[in-house]
């Protein structure tokens, strides 16, 4: 049985890209998803930098989030690929009773306990579960001007042993959702490359080369916009990409399809100009 959600916004979206939060809320309301903003949320202990410094800190801090959701009788809905990985991987680690007992020995000091009864969902997963019929019904605007390059980002599909929203080889969820909205995906990669966002703060030169490598085929293959569900990829594409190919976050595409005006969802805050 479906439970209401705690909406986990993460850090990057609410601080630097709040317009992506605006479009996400619009879409969730249109879909009739029952949610409220997660009370007591902190950073998920993002998986590239923070987690690499202290694995045990990641485990207990992220477990705290799961415990808060469990206490509230809610599942967690993540707007961000990185947060999704962090929360879902922690949830899976805590399926092991020994690990869970060790973590609960720490959580008890802040009055919490986790029993292993929370599900973690990605925004794209919620949309896919809503289904083609509902998305088609809600779609009121023509989006046929877009010819998308679909870029799921690493942590919607990898590590494939742990994340199962989509296939890590030849992912298709974005293509499906875009087609339900009447738009076309013209670049759908078998093995989507990393955008380099994770190391942008450590080695900008390498990050830029990875970004160029990931996107170099998009425009020659006919794309006029990138579609992604990952805010870190969004930043790379919108701010750091030299080619200037515009980008839409998944929630923005859906909001536009559902009739939101560009003003309402803050498209003016994009650096790149949309078609």
């Amino acid at each position: 049985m479906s439970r209401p959600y705690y909406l986990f916004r993460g850090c990057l979206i609410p601080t630097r890209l709040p317009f992506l939060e605006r479009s996400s809320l619009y879409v969730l309301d249109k879909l009739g998803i029952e949610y409220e903003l997660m009370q007591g949320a902190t950073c998920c202990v993002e998986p590239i930098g923070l987690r690499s410094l202290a694995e045990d800190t990641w485990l207990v801090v992220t477990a705290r989030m799961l415990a808060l959701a469990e206490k509230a009788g809610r599942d967690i809905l993540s707007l961000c690929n990185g947060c999704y990985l962090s929360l879902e991987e922690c949830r899976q680690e805590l399926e092991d009773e020994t690990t869970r007992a060790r973590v609960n020995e720490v959580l008890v000091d802040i009055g919490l306990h986790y029993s292993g009864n929370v599900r973690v969902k990605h925004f794209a997963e919620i949309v896919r579960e809503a289904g083609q019929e509902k998305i088609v019904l809600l779609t009121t605007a023509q989006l046929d001007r877009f010819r998308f390059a679909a870029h799921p980002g690493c942590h919607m599909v990898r590590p494939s042993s742990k994340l199962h929203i989509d296939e890590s080889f030849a992912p298709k969820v974005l293509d499906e959702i875009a087609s339900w909205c009447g738009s076309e995906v013209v670049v759908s990669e078998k093995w989507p490359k990393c955008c380099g966002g994770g190391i942008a703060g450590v080695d900008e030169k390498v990050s830029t080369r990875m970004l160029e490598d990931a996107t170099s085929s998009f425009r020659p293959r006919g794309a006029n916009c990138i579609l992604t569900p990952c805010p870190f990829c969004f930043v790379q594409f919108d701010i750091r990409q030299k080619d200037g190919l515009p980008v839409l976050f998944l929630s923005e595409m859906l909001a536009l399809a559902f009739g939101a005006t560009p003003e309402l969802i803050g498209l003016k805050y994009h650096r790149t100009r949309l078609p």
Partner: protein
Amino acid sequence: MGVEPSEILTFLRGAAAVRGNIPKHFSDEAKLFISSGLSFPNSGMTRKLRKELDLDGLTVSSETLAQLALLVKRTRLGELELE
């Protein structure tokens, strides 16, 4: 046998952090996380944008920060030299 390459990398990165080999970007991020609960700053521009978009003020309560401080103290992040 039975060990993923990513597990070896994770171990090595953790060991490097214990020895103080932490990229400045990550060290700054960790300090921000411990002090604010977030890994990106809630800046004046953030507040301006959120207000323009009719979004909430994005606050992390003192109770939440106190809980986070305790968890950090009980785990390895609390032991690292972040300067």
